[in-house]
């Protein structure tokens, strides 16, 4: 299987994060092309390219941009770099290996949505990567790439990095905006009709780092150039990633629609220690787990994973070998969710702690079948009854683990006399 390098083309270049290296490798070449078009033309190209958001949700980027007003008094572009999903570590490759690609994408994107002020919301723990990105932004300011004019074009762009304070939920776009406004990171109530996000009361687009970093390629190679890769509903490429019991963990860019098993074999070099595969969490911890059989049939695109009741998420696959205890794995994940629930909605605030405690009791062989039934019932209460998708995601995780590995969970139950 071959890697297709659109976003990752410079990852292996030495000193790729420096402007002079980046310029040698074609950075900012699409700017001239972009400014020769109107903002609406760019939005059209992105819409035609069917570019899907790469932060986990997979919403069509063009649709998001179309919601922005044509003559805004003020508007913002916010780049979501709060990469906190367990098993996901692709965005940090972009900001540390090719930050100028992101800046190039930011310039085109904010021109398209008529924004002049850009915030990059980065998770607080990414201190080192943030420094690299800030250096790149400083270099871009010095060379007149951003600032009052964009490479001579009369369009102001200012980029500000904002570091988060370490809450997973701030990766949810509306919680991110709340946090950016200086408030507590609580997701907002969803609007009843399609409309843009709002930051400080002004229309705003929130996009993932990789989504923005893909934009320059599409502008340079046209929508058709991007549509060459991937499948009908999942066009282009994605920075899939591998972690867990795998020989070569890492980030490998590849087109959508390839066989999951093949991807794991060819990029990951197979399961560590020659063991058998037991399960894979396909796209970051919040996506329902797949069994080995399902992995063999699954393809890495939105439609295929949906068929298995899971989703592509962030593309960060967590591979588990035959010796993995699924009860322990679920307990590990639920520890994370119980700690990271923002505490706003009742089902999530109280539910995540409760399900964690139940799974802990299963792990300690103190639980009965009744407890597993309670676990699934609480999981049902957490599904679809909250403001954001945190609790429904946890619910999906629990259901997949318990239903797909039922016998293993049962083997942990207290023997009833």
């Amino acid at each position: 299987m071959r890697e297709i390098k659109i976003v990752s083309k410079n990852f292996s270049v030495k000193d790729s994060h420096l402007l002079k290296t980046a310029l040698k490798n074609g950075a900012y070449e699409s700017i001239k092309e972009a400014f020769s078009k109107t903002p609406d033309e760019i939005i059209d190209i992105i819409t035609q390219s069917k570019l899907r958001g790469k932060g986990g949700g997979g919403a069509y980027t063009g649709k998001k941009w179309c919601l922005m007003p044509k003559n805004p008094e003020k508007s913002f572009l916010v780049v979501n770099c709060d990469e906190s999903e367990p098993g996901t570590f692709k965005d940090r490759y972009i900001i540390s290996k090719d930050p100028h690609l992101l800046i190039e994408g930011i310039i085109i994107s904010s021109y398209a949505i008529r924004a002049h002020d850009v915030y990059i919301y980065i998770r607080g723990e990414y201190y080192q990567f943030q420094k690299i990105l800030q250096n790149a932004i400083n270099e871009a300011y010095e060379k007149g790439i951003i600032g009052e004019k964009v490479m001579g074009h009369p369009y102001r762009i200012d980029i500000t990095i904002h570091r988060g304070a370490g809450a997973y939920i701030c990766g949810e776009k509306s919680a991110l905006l709340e946090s950016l406004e200086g408030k507590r990171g609580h997701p907002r109530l969803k609007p009843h009709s399609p409309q843009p996000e709002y930051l400080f009361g002004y229309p705003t687009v929130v996009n993932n780092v990789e989504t923005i970093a893909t934009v320059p390629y599409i502008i340079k190679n046209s929508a058709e150039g991007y549509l060459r890769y991937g499948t009908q509903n999942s066009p282009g490429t994605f920075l899939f990633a591998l972690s867990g019991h795998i020989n070569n963990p890492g980030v490998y860019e590849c087109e959508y629609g390839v066989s999951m098993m093949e991807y794991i074999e060819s990029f990951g070099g197979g399961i560590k220690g020659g063991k058998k595969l037991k399960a894979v969490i396909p796209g970051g911890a919040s996506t329902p787990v797949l069994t080995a059989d399902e992995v063999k049939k699954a393809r890495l695109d939105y439609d295929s994973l949906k068929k298995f009741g899971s989703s592509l998420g962030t593309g960060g696959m967590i591979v588990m070998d035959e010796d993995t205890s699924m009860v322990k794995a679920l307990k590990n994940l639920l520890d994370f969710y119980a700690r990271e629930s923002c505490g706003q909605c009742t089902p999530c605030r109280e539910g995540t702690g409760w399900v964690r405690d139940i799974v802990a009791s299963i792990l300690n062989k103190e639980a009965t079948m009744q407890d597993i039934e309670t676990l699934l019932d609480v999981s049902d209460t957490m599904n679809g009854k909250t403001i954001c998708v945190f609790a429904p995601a946890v619910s999906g995780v629990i259901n997949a683990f318990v239903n797909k590995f039922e016998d293993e969970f049962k083997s942990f139950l207290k023997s009833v006399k």
Partner: protein
Amino acid sequence: MSEKLVTVKINDEEIKAKEGELLIKLLKKEHMEVPYFCYHDALGADGNCRMCMVEIEGKKRPQIACDTPVKEGMVVKTNSDMIKKVRKNILELELINHPIDCPVCDQAGECRLQDYYMDYGVYEGRIDKAKKVHLQKHLDIGNNVILDQERCVLCQRCVRFTDNITKTHELGVIGRGNHSRISTMPGKKLNNPYAMNIVELCPVGALTNKDFRFKQRVWFLKSTPAICHGCAKGCNIYIDHNKEKYKDDTIYRIRARVNHDINGYFICDEGRMSYKELGINRQYNALLNSKTIDFGDVSKEFEKIIKETKGDILILADANLYLEELEAIKEFAKTLNAAVCSPLKIYIDESFGDDWLKSKNRAANAKGIQKLNIPQTYEDIEKLELVINFNHPAFKNFLTPKSISFQTHKEFEADLILPIAAFSETEGTLINEDNITQFSQRAIHSKQKIPNIIEWIEMLKDKK
């Protein structure tokens, strides 16, 4: 919100409603059951408690009524099995980390959590595997408010009140997940003149009133609708009182009563605490030259003083008295050939006023004085021989040879001192500063049997 009327179907009943109106408001208006913690008419929707979920046809999942605008043809179910299960399960979750200490909780009897549990609750516990999170209890967060973080359901009404209404931002949520809790900002305390409203806003026992807690079980209290006498605003209140066996009828607290034209849902802390002074330093006895006399002997002594008076008589009338009392005083003055006056400037307190519910004019019926054409000044002070005071604070400025004082509190010295009922012990009409006429009911029926002004005048005028 448009004025367009649409038809919606709620539990098979067709109802006309304004398009765009919040479904929860409609359900409340139609008296259909809808449990909720976080929504409040004055604070709006926050959507965090998830109790007000309803089933809406065409929607896969249950929807929160507090964030659902009414649309034409909407079909809503509030009592389906699915909704009943949702309510039950969410309540169960609320109780996981709740101390369930109703027997010692002051909120018991007026607690949403308790009420809803009785309505929708689970009666078979299955939360044995959940470990309770322990948080801080009985925290004194200032302004007479005590916080118990464990009883809290995180509805954030208190936070939204300090953020959006008083804009003083003393409160916030700290911690995450089931460690989330309400707290004041580090090193800060509640510090605003309306802070005690959050006790009333709190649907559970997390915020209690330091002044009221542990004094009474709320189901013993009787609530009488009345008008606050703290200033000219005329905020609507409930006087909560109880007469315990062998004790006198006593006020235990004052609560806000909703009136959209005046105070909305709130009152100021000073008004809330104003009941305290109705119980201290009260004048209970009739005194003649500092000696107690029987109420039965009063008219004789009163008549004697009047008869001996050759000079002018002035009657001072407090601008906090009810219109009915003021009318009676005016009539009484005619029979005595006395002038009536009520200086109003003395009631002005610039330091008290603000631009919301606190008026710098501290006379509850100043407009009533004006309406009855009672003069505010009196010229011929030199010729005065007798001043008859009806609780007016300016009485101390009148140094006449003789004086009679009808007073609620042991405030003034006079030749003849007569006790009168305070505003809570009688009833009457007030006109507030915005010319709104309101009636205040009698709450207290005291063992002391102190006559009110009208009763005194009835007693005295025949004997003159």
